[in-house]
């Protein structure tokens, strides 16, 4: 029982910590934006409010906080979480032998041990490798993932003068809103598709440049798998683009707060349940994790990074976990309502200052991201690996037609009813059908496993 209450306490403390962390991020963005403004004023000699300076300052702060803190720390914590969470799933304890003052600290010290191991490992490289591409591949695998997180709208925009300490800084509307989002581009999801398709270069080049047949096999598998799944990945999000009539992720999040069926908000999960499933499956294949982990078959020694050692391997390894974080962020923004806290949203909005409401929203976003990361690590222990033809079949014969049908149904529903209510009802119907199918058990009860059955099986 102690552990039960302790865990509840830990979860509550985590949520509170996320809210405080988000508040800190907002403060950093606001103050750095204002600092850039002051710097620009000092350089140009004309004190005043400069929109680009505030925007750049806030973006630099967001690069530091969101990319380096949220993305990198969650990606490296996920390496530990993978061990501990899979242990919990499999009734084990998991990594706990490194102890700090007698406490295993949930396995987190293993992070330091892993980093130390990766950094001090002997560097072994194949002869005949293509030197430039070999060195370039880990960076090419890691950089797009990093860049992808730039468009994730972690927190909503608030006015600069709503941030504590900056009340007299600038009138509302005089400068860009301060949001926890590195870049607010018009292209939005198109940028996502473009950068996501760059990931394949890192893996394909790593396999090709290693001068190793098994690595090449892994690279070829990775490229064919990722290129296939990009099709259904793109098509699955077309439905949400139609439903919210925008490509910008932050506008999608705002649109998800509008009530559509009575008080129920127009979440992406409600309007596009099929799109969600297809996107999740396709993006999962893009991350190259089990059950789609053919590019790195341990049992076949195939893997695009078999010839990498030390921190170069570490970078390829970390890129995979960073992809998980980015995927969790995209799903949260597009399908789970982004920074909308969903529960008690009206009450929170009325009783908190805009700054603290935004902080709670960003905390809710990160909490939803954690749930989605957990779901991705869970799937790994749920399904056995696909065979390669099964992977291609799933993509081209199941996900792609379903995505196409989803696009047409969404378009037709919005043509008939532009308010989106019809689409929401279709979504509710889909969710109910899936729930009924899931709850219904079609399998006949197993025959009594008695002694007689053994004789029958043996034929006497």
């Amino acid at each position, binding site marked *: *029982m*102690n*552990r*039960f209450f302790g*865990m509840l306490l830990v979860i509550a403390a985590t949520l509170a910590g996320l809210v405080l962390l988000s508040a800190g991020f907002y403060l950093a963005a606001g103050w750095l934006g204002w600092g850039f403004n002051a710097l620009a004023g000092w350089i140009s000699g004309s004190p005043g409010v400069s929109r680009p300076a505030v925007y750049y300052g806030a973006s630099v702060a967001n690069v530091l906080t969101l990319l380096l803190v949220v993305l990198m720390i969650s990606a490296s914590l996920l390496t530990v979480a993978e061990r501990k*969470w899979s242990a*919990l*799933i*499999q*009734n*084990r*304890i998991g990594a706990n032998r490194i102890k700090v003052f007698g406490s295993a600290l949930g396995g987190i010290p293993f992070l330091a041990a892993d980093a130390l191991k990766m950094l001090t490992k002997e560097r072994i490289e194949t002869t005949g490798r293509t030197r430039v591409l070999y060195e370039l591949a880990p960076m090419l695998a890691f950089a797009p993932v990093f860049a992808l997180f730039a468009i994730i709208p972690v927190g909503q925009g608030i006015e600069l003068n709503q941030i504590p300490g900056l009340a007299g800084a600038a009138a509302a509307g005089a400068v860009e809103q301060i949001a926890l989002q590195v870049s607010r581009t018009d292209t939005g999801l198109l940028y996502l598709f473009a950068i996501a398709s760059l990931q394949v270069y890192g893996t394909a080049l790593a396999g090709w440049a290693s001068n190793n047949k098994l690595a090449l096999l892994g690279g070829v598998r990775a490229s064919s798998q990722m290129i296939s799944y990009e099709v259904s990945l793109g098509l699955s999000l077309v439905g949400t683009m139609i439903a919210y009539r925008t490509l910008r992720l932050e506008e999608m999040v705002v649109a998800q707060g509008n009530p559509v069926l009575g008080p129920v908000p127009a979440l992406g999960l409600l309007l596009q349940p099929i799109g969600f*499933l297809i996107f999740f499956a396709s993006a999962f294949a893009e991350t190259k994790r089990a059950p789609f982990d053919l590019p790195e078959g341990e049992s076949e020694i195939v893997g695009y990074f078999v010839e990498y050692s030390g921190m170069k391997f570490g970078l390829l390894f970390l890129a995979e976990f960073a992809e998980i974080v980015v995927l969790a962020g995209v799903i949260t923004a597009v399908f789970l309502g982004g920074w909308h806290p969903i529960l008690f949203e009206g009450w929170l909005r009325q009783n908190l200052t805009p700054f603290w409401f935004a902080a709670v929203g960003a905390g809710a976003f990160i909490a939803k991201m954690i749930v989605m990361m957990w*779901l991705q690590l*869970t*799937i790994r*222990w*749920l*399904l056995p690996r696909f065979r390669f033809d099964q992977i291609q079949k799933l993509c081209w014969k*199941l996900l792609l037609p379903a995505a196409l049908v989803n696009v047409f149904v969404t378009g037709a529903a919005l043509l008939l009813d532009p308010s989106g209510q019809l689409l929401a009802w279709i979504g509710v119907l889909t969710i109910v059908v*899936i729930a009924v*199918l*899931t709850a*219904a058990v*079609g399998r*006949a009860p*197993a*025959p009594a*496993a*008695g*002694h007689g*059955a*053994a004789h*029958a*099986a*043996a034929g006497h």
Partner: protein
Amino acid sequence: MPYQLENRPPDLRESMYFPEIIRGIGTITKHFLKNLFFSRDANPDILARKRGGFGHSDNVTLQYPEERAPYAPAYRGLHRLVPREDGKPRCVACYMCATICPAQCIYIEAAEYPDDPVEKYPAKFVIDELRCIVCGFCVEACPKDAIRMDSGEHTPPSYERSAQIWDEKRLLRGPPVSYQYDPWLRRGSPSIPPDKLEEMRARAKPFPTVATDEASQTPGFSVRALAAEARDRAQAARK
């Protein structure tokens, strides 16, 4: 236990794939939450630990060096040379164990007690634990119950192979044993002081002459009793 599995193609619901995946996520989540919110039973008596049910996690892990599962009583552990009450080995250097050993890992050099012209003892008794295949033949072959594998321990690890060669000084340990018909008890031995001899005679047990003897069996299990039951059944069936 084998039972017949129905090898049929998946039905429509199963071939839709996602419902079954969602069910699987449900199962996994159940395990995850249970193990997250409830702790392992840390009862030092490992076999009595509670698992599953409300309030206990499903965890099966033993933290090995700190927590060890008890071995079965019949576990064949590290050899020991059984001592007598006066500290000398029961072994009479008959070479039975060295002869039967399939791995040929036992080396014996016999010697005689200077004050007792009848009795022999092993001047050297060496077992190479690296060659030993832990078959237990030496224990079965021994006519004097002088070598046993009842220590319940593994061979301890070492950095050198030479440390795995156990001689009589390391092997001679554990509780002493005496049997009523031990020759040195019946006729006395110059090497044993008379008062010690009386004590040893008083403690001596009857020797298990055959493997079916009650003394050498697990309590509650008796080959003779089972055989008698079978004989009675057969007789009842004949009538």
